[in-house]
């Protein structure tokens, strides 16, 4: 089987329509698209998944480079506004880094894996809406291009010192691109969720759906509860920016635009990226040691609980007085409770290890190492999140916010490397090299760990709220650590992207199983 095998062949194979007795005219009428045309017309969800994975990994590389430049600005080697050519430009890159990692990297990366893996896990020939999956990818890609180009043209999600005429146009484009990306991700998520709900094999109860498919179903549900709220935010901001003053709700200048959207990259909503990570981790550990959980329904409940705690559309402090929201019982409870499902899931993974073969080669398998690293980083992020909501610690508006963000994002990147290794057959790529996989995971884990730790400690050291870490004079050493961590994450993203690109070669099915 090759990478360019026509989708129709798979569909026909699944349906039995492509048998030898088919009339000759059938072959002509449904002629397979050429290699060049395939990405534009394919109805094979696995091919769409590969497109998502490849594009997201390349964007991960670009985004992590932006992260390196931003962290360089924190080292005092060069003033951040000098590095980017002005304070507004620095703010643009600062917001791009966060939005991009969420909407252009981690979410599409895991969605791409899901499009390829979920149908085979639930026993379906293809996803429920193959054409919607294709539209999802292209809409996401076009939206991503609009975002990146408009941000570099002076747009972005707000400006610190006021919005000029040209910036207003570019910002409008950024908002439209963001909305397009969100709607595209929703389309893909609905496709995956419908596949799990409607196309799973007869007799397969939702409680016993494989953990990754279940985690994607939960993630899709949470995305459906979260992203439309963010799209509504975008509509209001766009109306403020372009509409007449009579319909203006807020102010489309200063950083107000960002303040209406920042809830998306802060807890609890930031965890919406991490829900599929749980499914990847459990399945990777099980595959590495060759064991199945004795209580699969417990895993199902744990993943569902984590998804529930990731619903965050209600936590918009732009519309509610921050002290009312952040000190409220619900916000604190969500922050503290998010740790529990991760601890429980770690217990579930440990049970798998105890039940499985504990030979050194299996315990040091790339999937095992990666799953462990992803869960640890996610656990660390949730732990910081729990500390953050404890009011006497004064961590709310500090860099501890980005410790949570970095932990979740890097855990998502590591999970994608594990997924590439674990499901190469479903993705129809060659097996990800063990050396590259281990290298990428080690770099990402080390970089992510440094970022989480230094952002947390910087948060403790801050005398006053300082989200952008612009006045952390007392933590110069920590800022250098952040810089090193950013470089390691960028190197890990580069290794993962290179590994994925080198795995994109036609291979026989039997050769592509890493196990």
């Amino acid at each position, binding site marked *: 089987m090759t990478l360019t095998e026509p989708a129709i062949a798979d569909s026909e194979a699944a349906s039995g329509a492509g048998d030898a007795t088919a*009339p000759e005219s059938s072959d002509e009428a449904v002629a397979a698209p050429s290699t060049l045309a395939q990405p534009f017309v394919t109805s094979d969800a696995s091919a769409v998944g590969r497109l998502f994975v490849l594009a997201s990994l390349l964007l991960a590389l670009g985004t992590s480079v932006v992260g390196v430049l931003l962290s360089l600005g924190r080292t005092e080697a060069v003033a951040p506004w000098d590095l980017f050519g002005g304070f507004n430009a620095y703010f643009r890159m600062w917001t791009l880094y966060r939005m991009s990692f969420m909407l252009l990297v981690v979410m599409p990366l895991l969605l791409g894996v899901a499009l390829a893996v979920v149908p085979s896990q639930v026993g379906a020939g293809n996803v429920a809406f*193959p054409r919607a999956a*294709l539209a999802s990818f292209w809409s996401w890609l076009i939206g991503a291009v609009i975002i990146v180009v408009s941000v570099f043209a002076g747009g972005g999600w707000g400006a610190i010192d006021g919005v000029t005429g040209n910036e207003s146009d570019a910002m409008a484009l950024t908002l439209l691109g963001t909305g397009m990306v969100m709607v595209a991700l929703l389309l893909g998520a609905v496709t995956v969720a*419908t596949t799990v709900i409607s196309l799973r094999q007869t007799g397969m109860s939702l409680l016993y759906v494989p953990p990754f498919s279940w985690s994607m179903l939960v993630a899709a549900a949470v995305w459906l509860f979260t992203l439309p709220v963010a799209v509504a935010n975008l509509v209001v901001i766009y109306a403020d920016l372009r509409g007449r003053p009579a319909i203006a709700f807020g102010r489309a200048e200063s950083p107000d635009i960002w303040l209406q959207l920042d809830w998306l990259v802060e807890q609890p909503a930031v965890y919406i990226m991490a829900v599929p990570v749980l499914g990847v981790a459990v399945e990777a550990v099980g595959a590495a040691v060759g064991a199945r959980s004795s209580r699969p329904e417990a895993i199902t409940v744990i993943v569902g609980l984590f998804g529930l705690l990731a619903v965050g559309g209600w*936590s918009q402090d732009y*519309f509610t007085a921050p002290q009312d929201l952040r000190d409220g019982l619900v916000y604190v409870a969500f922050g503290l409770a998010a740790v529990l499902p991760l601890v429980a899931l770690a217990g579930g993974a440990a049970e798998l290890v105890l039940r499985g073969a504990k030979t050194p080669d299996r315990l040091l398998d790339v999937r095992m190492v990666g799953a462990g690293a992803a869960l640890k980083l996610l656990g660390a992020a949730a732990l910081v999140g729990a500390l953050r909501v404890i009011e006497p610690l004064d961590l709310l508006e500090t860099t501890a916010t980005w410790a949570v963000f970095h932990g979740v994002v890097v855990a998502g990147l590591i999970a994608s490397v594990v997924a590439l290794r674990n499901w190469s057959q479903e993705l129809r790529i060659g097996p990800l090299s063990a050396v590259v996989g281990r290298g990428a995971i080690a770099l990402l884990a080390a970089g992510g760990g440094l970022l989480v730790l230094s952002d947390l400690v910087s948060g403790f050291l801050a005398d006053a709220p300082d989200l952008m870490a612009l006045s952390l004079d007392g933590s110069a050493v920590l800022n250098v650590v952040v810089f090193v961590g950013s470089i390691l994450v960028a190197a890990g993203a580069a290794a993962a992207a290179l590994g994925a690109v080198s795995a994109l070669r036609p291979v026989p099915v039997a050769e592509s199983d890493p196990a």
Partner: protein
Amino acid sequence: MFTTGFKFFFGLFAAFCAAALVYGYTTGGNHVGPLSLGWKGGVGDHIGYGVLVGLAGVSLTISLVLVSFRDADAAAQAHLQNLAEVPTDQPVSASFWPVAASFGAGAAAVGSVLHPMVFVLGLAVIVLSTVEWTMDAWADRATGDAAVNRELRNRIMAPIEIPVIGALAVGVVVLAASRILLTVSQLAAVTVAGVVSALILGGAWVYASRPGLGRRLVRVLGAVGALLLLMGGVLAAVAGERDFHHHTDDTHEESGEPTSNGEHGG
């Protein structure tokens, strides 16, 4: 019982309702305002709430239409076609229209900020893609034979597509050729028109006299010719028309020099 299409859109309806509630209460809604569409209490921010409720309404309507007509219900289709067995899975043919719809959405987004013409073009592409996509989806489920499905689709759409595409092609050719002829000098315009006419005539003669000519070759030559014409038209439009010198006796002559703004001389 419930069709796949119904589940999809009813799910969207539920999600949009939930999003509207969350959005309403988080943007200043009070009492049961967001629950009662503003009848008792405020709904918070009207624009976002209105958009979400509107989307919920559209999703609910579509879901009810789909379940009423049993769309994507394999059992219902098998019954209509007098099939003994219900097909378990149906092939989905390759289609360009999802990508076209995405590009249309992108063009509409960019055009809404940069130029109304691009916006309208994007909307037109979205509408066209929606119609074509719908027809492809219907045809894929018409029978169990992909070739028959394709033929059914073409039987309905070809009488619409061919004249429309033909009219568009003629329009593009006329527009591009006229830009080229109005930009180059008078002598060059006559030469270009003569050469192009001769090429078209010669090509048609060769194609008619050699029926065995490869279809791929003809397609490639046609595509290259169309591309050259389009590029020439765009470049000529950018360069502007040549300078026309009008005289009082209504005769005019051309200097042969193109102008940057394309205005006629007086």
